[in-house]
């Protein structure tokens, strides 16, 4: 079994990319930390020959979905003066996730984050994490064929969202129009 440090080294970047795509820069770091802490806890029990990247993306997906549910449950900031931001975030220093997204195609990523969860997961895990549909299906808890359909539906929805920003659900129209390539 590889030392866990090597696992972080090999897969840390792709997990951060998944967290950024699912949650955006503000919450991605917390999700990344929660993912690797949970993975570290379970790591000695991981079966030899397991697909480590698929396993990590599954954990990251679940942590991100937890974060989205928390966000949905608490849309109003707490008024009792309680600081809900984790203290560890300050200790982590400058915000690498924020820097990593500077000047990027924010419209598109906002549209990805506005997709329904299954489509969002299928698009991110297939096109950004590079997982085949068999593994995408395992991550989001569906069949490979359904995962493929969700990804196709997601891509179609992104096309619609980007071609008519005003009509896209949840996509901010305050951003500049997507650049043509």
């Amino acid at each position: 079994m590889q030392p866990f440090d090597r696992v972080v080294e090999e897969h840390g970047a792709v997990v951060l990319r998944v967290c950024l795509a699912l949650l955006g820069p503000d919450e991605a770091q917390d999700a990344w930390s929660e993912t690797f802490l949970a993975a570290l806890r379970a790591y000695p029990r991981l079966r030899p020959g397991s697909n480590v990247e698929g396993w990590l993306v599954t954990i990251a997906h679940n942590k991100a979905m937890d974060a989205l549910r928390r966000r949905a449950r608490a849309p109003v900031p707490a008024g009792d003066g309680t600081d809900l931001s984790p203290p560890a975030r300050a200790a982590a220093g400058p915000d690498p996730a924020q820097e990593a997204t500077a000047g990027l195609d924010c419209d598109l990523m906002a549209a990805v984050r506005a997709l329904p969860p299954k489509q969002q997961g299928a698009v991110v895990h297939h096109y950004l994490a590079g997982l085949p549909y068999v593994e995408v299906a395992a991550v989001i808890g569906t069949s490979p064929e359904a995962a493929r359909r969700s990804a196709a539906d997601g891509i179609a929805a992104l096309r619609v969202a980007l071609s008519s920003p005003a009509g896209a659900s949840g996509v901010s129209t305050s951003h500049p129009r997507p650049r043509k390539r």
Partner: protein
Amino acid sequence: MGPSTNTPDHDHTPDHTGIPGRPDGDDDGLVTRLRDAQPMPRPDALVALRARLAAEAEADGLLDVAYRVVDSPIGPLLVAVTYDGVARVAFENEGHDEVLEELAAAISPRILTAPRRTDPVARQLDEYFAGRRRRFDLELDLRLARGFRRQVLDQLRMVDFGHTVSYGELARAAGNPRAVRAAGSACATNPVPLVVPCHRVVRSDGSIGQYRGGPEAKRTLLALESAA
């Protein structure tokens, strides 16, 4: 900075996932644009996250082995510390990757590079090499040495800075005068060289003998101690 400047791994050629650069129905390049929109973070983006992970793992009791590599006059030394104490000091010639794999198998795969727990041993090694320390004041985890080898190491801890003993004397002190070869192999497999000073064991004819870090390292250490 354009969206595609730092995504060399996502060009228009097929990649390891088998996804073509321009998949079916990607006439307008949306899938390609999607990959460029969220590029792979660079390794330096992960430095702070890895430090935070090590700190949280330590606090949660999940950091079974903390390690770091320290520079020294005899080359980079890997130091690995469990919750009980220093478990391993490894020379470069042992192959640090191999040593970490051995630790994963023998102690736990929950291994992370972490500064806090390894600070005391790193600092004391620095002081030792600078001639400001004659004795290491560290908790040890000697689980990697068992039986007679462990007894030999226990005796070895009492050999002071600047002194040497022979393998025969060491075997006698460990309770088995005839186990000279076994005393030698206990030194050769000492999991915590320097901290348990196996470099202070020499042949009875006065020649320097073998060393896990190579005879040149042993010579350097003995010279350092005799000069102080």
